[in-house]
């Protein structure tokens, strides 16, 4: 059991601070269409370092809750993660505005890190974001079901 809690503030459809969890071994996220379930998955891949464009083609600005202060947003996602030795880490990423440009920065246990250092720490925790193997996004299965032989070759090559 690794993901313990998710703490979200002003991220996509989540206005204000939300604490989601604690997660168990087998948790299900349920609710109506458009309620914000996939947005939770977006929060997780966001805090783990996915580029905004890889989050359903967004820009950083699109990830900030639309009703938040657009001049000085305080958007963040914090993932409480327990490693295999039972040690707890708080992985964080936020979105701020500097010189009218949207930027994001990373923290682990409140200590700020560069994006590269953050990814290095994730690898040590056993989270290899580049492998993309921890997530199946909505619609992926249907898209893959319609692939041609040459596309399968390509997929295998990407993996090798």
């Amino acid at each position, binding site marked *: 059991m690794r993901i313990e809690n998710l703490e979200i503030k002003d991220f996509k459809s989540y206005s204000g601070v939300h604490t989601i*969890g604690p997660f168990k071994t087998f948790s*299900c996220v349920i609710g109506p269409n458009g309620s914000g379930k996939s947005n939770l998955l977006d929060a997780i891949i966001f805090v783990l370092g996915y580029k905004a464009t890889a989050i359903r083609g967004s820009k950083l600005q699109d990830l900030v*809750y639309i009703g938040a202060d657009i001049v000085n947003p305080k958007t963040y996602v914090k993932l409480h993660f327990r490693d295999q030795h039972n040690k707890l880490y708080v992985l964080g990423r936020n979105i701020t505005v500097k010189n009218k440009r949207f930027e994001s920065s990373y923290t682990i246990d409140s200590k700020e890190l560069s994006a590269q250092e953050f990814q290095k720490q994730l690898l040590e925790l056993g989270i290899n974001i580049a492998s993309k193997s921890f997530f199946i996004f909505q619609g992926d299965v249907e898209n893959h079901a319609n692939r041609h032989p040459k596309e*399968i*070759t390509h997929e*295998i090559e990407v993996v090798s």
Partner: protein
Amino acid sequence: RKSLFLKAFKRISKNLTVIYAELTKELEPPYHRGSAHLSLEDPMNPFNAGVKFSVIPPNKRFQEIDQLSGGEKSVAALAFTFSLQGFKSTPFLILDEIDAAFDTENVLKLLRWVRNKTKVNAIQFIVISLKEIFFAHSDLLIGICRNTDSTSQSLTLALDQLPPDEASEKLIAN
């Protein structure tokens, strides 16, 4: 480049056969399983040609993936996605509505597979699903709803404290 590809191809092909068999094994005796195979159209020049994905759903005949029904294709595509990486170093898996095309039987087979993976590979699962026969058997429900201002709200409900549903538990125990 070619040897890297062939090495990965062998590994993925093996995984696929195992995972597809697990995902399709019948819920009742005689527990027939489906089988799936990857084969290179041109083993000498793998990059010039494609990879054929052949499938035999349980009790059916041999066919290419594009000849299958919608739901059968989904199961095969899911098995392929899982086989790309295997589960050696996977702490968690997050799945977003992968069961959209599944009938009741395939949903229960998926449920059985997920439960098995939590035990055998100690993987943590977070699954988004609209299907009650699936999520009713998880340990925890995170309900998301919309407020009147259309912002999201979450509510958590632990299910592992409740008595299990005997009938379904029996079905997926194998």
